């Protein structure tokens, strides 16, 4: 028997009240952990989709251009000065920005035109895009191989033919088939695969390793532009653009994908809503705990007076009440975490928001939630417990 036998026995004796309080707190915590997980998973799966929509930030060389028109005749924008985009420098700068962790893919491009031969058709001109295949495939998770494979283009090893990928239209127009040896501007290439039609510019170009395109364009170490895919549930995309602009003063950085951003906004909104709702539930549960503790103190004045009359200090009485609340909080936290896991798995699987959302019961999280709930309940009990500790010993003697 310790001091805590008192709250334990009391909670047991008043079990309907105890159970009700635990149930309400559990409900609050279950909805909190459950909603948190569901909205987190939705955000995560949305972020995955966001990358699959491609880049959302574009870095291009800074251009100074002048729109020349005179007497109703327009020459259009005439480029006066284009500062080259040095790839090595740019990537170093990008890697140093504070929000680097939010950048998933950095995909540089070198655009050039070339003559191609070796296909079923005769030699013709084609747009060639030099890419870092690894980054490009990460960026364009919607890429599928119509023939051959995407994975074959590896780093160009000496002696091996340089790998290439062809867009659907380009392959059709030039009569290309995977495995074929090609010649672009006199350089030997082997076609690794042909992309399924994407409906984008990708369809009509040939993708080659960046280094080869740089050499063909005679622009070693430069990039035509860099596409960046950022994960932005944690930050607004403007912040990223701002940081990238600051890091790359010689280049132009702008956000693409307004659509993606609005969608992200919707996800954020849903997450905030889930958070607010669970906060309201939790605050309500805590308020109920406080009120019930206050009424318990009022009910138990005589008991408290008795404890004081047999020598309990104010601190001891305080501890009796706070520990009873903390105990209920702990149990509610444990039950709430478990219930939240079950609930969120059910919802996620039912709404097919995540593949095979298991329980993912995490012992550390479980303990953290339980302890946090115990702490919250103890905090909620402070005022009632303080009023309990102020009961005078003589109150035990007041006859009914």
């Amino acid at each position: 028997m310790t001091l805590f036998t008192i709250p334990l026995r009391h909670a047991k004796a008043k079990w309907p009240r105890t159970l009700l309080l635990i149930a309400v707190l559990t409900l609050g915590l279950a909805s909190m952990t459950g909603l948190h997980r569901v909205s987190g998973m939705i955000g995560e799966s949305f972020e995955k989709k966001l990358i699959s929509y491609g880049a959302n930030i574009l870095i291009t060389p800074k251009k100074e251009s002048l729109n020349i028109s005179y007497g109703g005749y327009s020459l259009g924008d005439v480029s006066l000065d284009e500062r080259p985009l040095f790839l090595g420098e740019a990537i170093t700068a990008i890697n140093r920005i504070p929000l680097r962790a939010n950048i998933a893919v950095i995909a540089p491009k070198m655009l050039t035109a070339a003559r191609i031969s070796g296909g079923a058709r005769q030699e013709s001109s084609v747009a060639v895009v030099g890419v870092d295949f690894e980054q490009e495939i990460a960026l364009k998770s919607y890429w599928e191989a119509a023939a051959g494979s995407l994975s074959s283009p590896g780093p160009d090893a000496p002696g091996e033919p340089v790998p290439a990928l062809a867009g659907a239209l380009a392959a059709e127009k030039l009569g290309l088939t995977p495995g074929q040896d090609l010649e672009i501007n006199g350089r030997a290439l082997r076609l690794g695969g042909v992309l399924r039609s994407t409906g984008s510019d990708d369809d009509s170009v040939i993708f080659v390793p960046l280094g080869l395109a740089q050499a063909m364009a005679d622009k070693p170490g430069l990039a035509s532009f860099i596409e960046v895919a950022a994960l932005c549930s944690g930050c607004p995309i403007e912040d990223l653009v701002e940081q990238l602009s600051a890091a790359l003063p010689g280049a132009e950085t702008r956000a693409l994908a307004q659509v993606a951003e609005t969608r992200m906004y919707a996800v954020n909104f849903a997450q905030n809503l889930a958070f607010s709702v669970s906060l309201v539930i939790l605050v309500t549960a805590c308020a109920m705990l406080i009120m019930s503790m206050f009424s318990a103190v009022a009910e138990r004045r005589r008991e408290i007076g008795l404890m004081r009359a047999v020598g309990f200090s104010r601190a001891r009485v305080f501890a009796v009440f706070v520990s009873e609340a903390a105990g209920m909080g702990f149990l509610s936290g444990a039950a709430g975490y478990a219930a939240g896991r079950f609930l969120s798995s059910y919802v996620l699987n039912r709404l097919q928001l995540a593949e095979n959302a298991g329980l993912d019961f995490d012992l550390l999280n479980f303990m953290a939630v339980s302890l946090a709930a115990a702490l919250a309940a103890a905090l909620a009990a402070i005022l009632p417990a303080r009023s309990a500790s102020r009961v005078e010993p003589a109150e035990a003697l007041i006859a009914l």
Partner: protein
Amino acid sequence: MSATPAAPCLLHALNLVKTHPGAEKPAVDHLNMHLEQGEFLSILGRSGSGKSTLLHILSSLILPDAGKVLFQGRDICAAPDNERNHLRRRDFAVVFQQHHLLPYLSALENVLLPFLRGLSPITAQEQDNARRMLEKVGLSGKENSLPGRLSGGEQQRVAIARALARGARILFADEPTGSLDSVTGTSIIQLLRDLNREGLSIIMVTHNPEFASWTSRSITMGDGRTLQG
């Protein structure tokens, strides 16, 4: 009324005044009294004469507005909170008319109540001692009963066992037989007399002159003062 007792004086009240908040006249009015070591003192008096108020002041449950209570020569009314807690835990024990047990703790646990110290559990020795005291007041076999399952007289005995278990110096009893029938009441008074013979000092408020006549000395109160004793 002697203000300077001959025998070693255990408890000494000097000029006690207490007016309850909202009350017109004082419940205890410039009262002097004392308790000698080993004495069994009874306090008589009409209803409302201030007996309970006096007992509460003496047992350190409430503070007087003026005056002193000397316990072993030290003014306990001027003592700090923790010292008064300690007095209530160790040296003073109170037995009320009713409501002196926590309803959800067993008889044994109620006896052990003053021994609780936070996280460190009750020792086996303390537990054995508590069992012995329950046996002594005639409650062997009822250690694990909840107060709701005990009769009024048995509940009084639990409270008395609680006083004995911690070796209290003074037992304060406020109409301990008030809610009991006369046979049960008599047995409680007899128990108190036995304990007094073993050396426990007792102050008991009672309405029953017969019970008072069994004690070593009685004082009668009227209008907050001692009328005789």
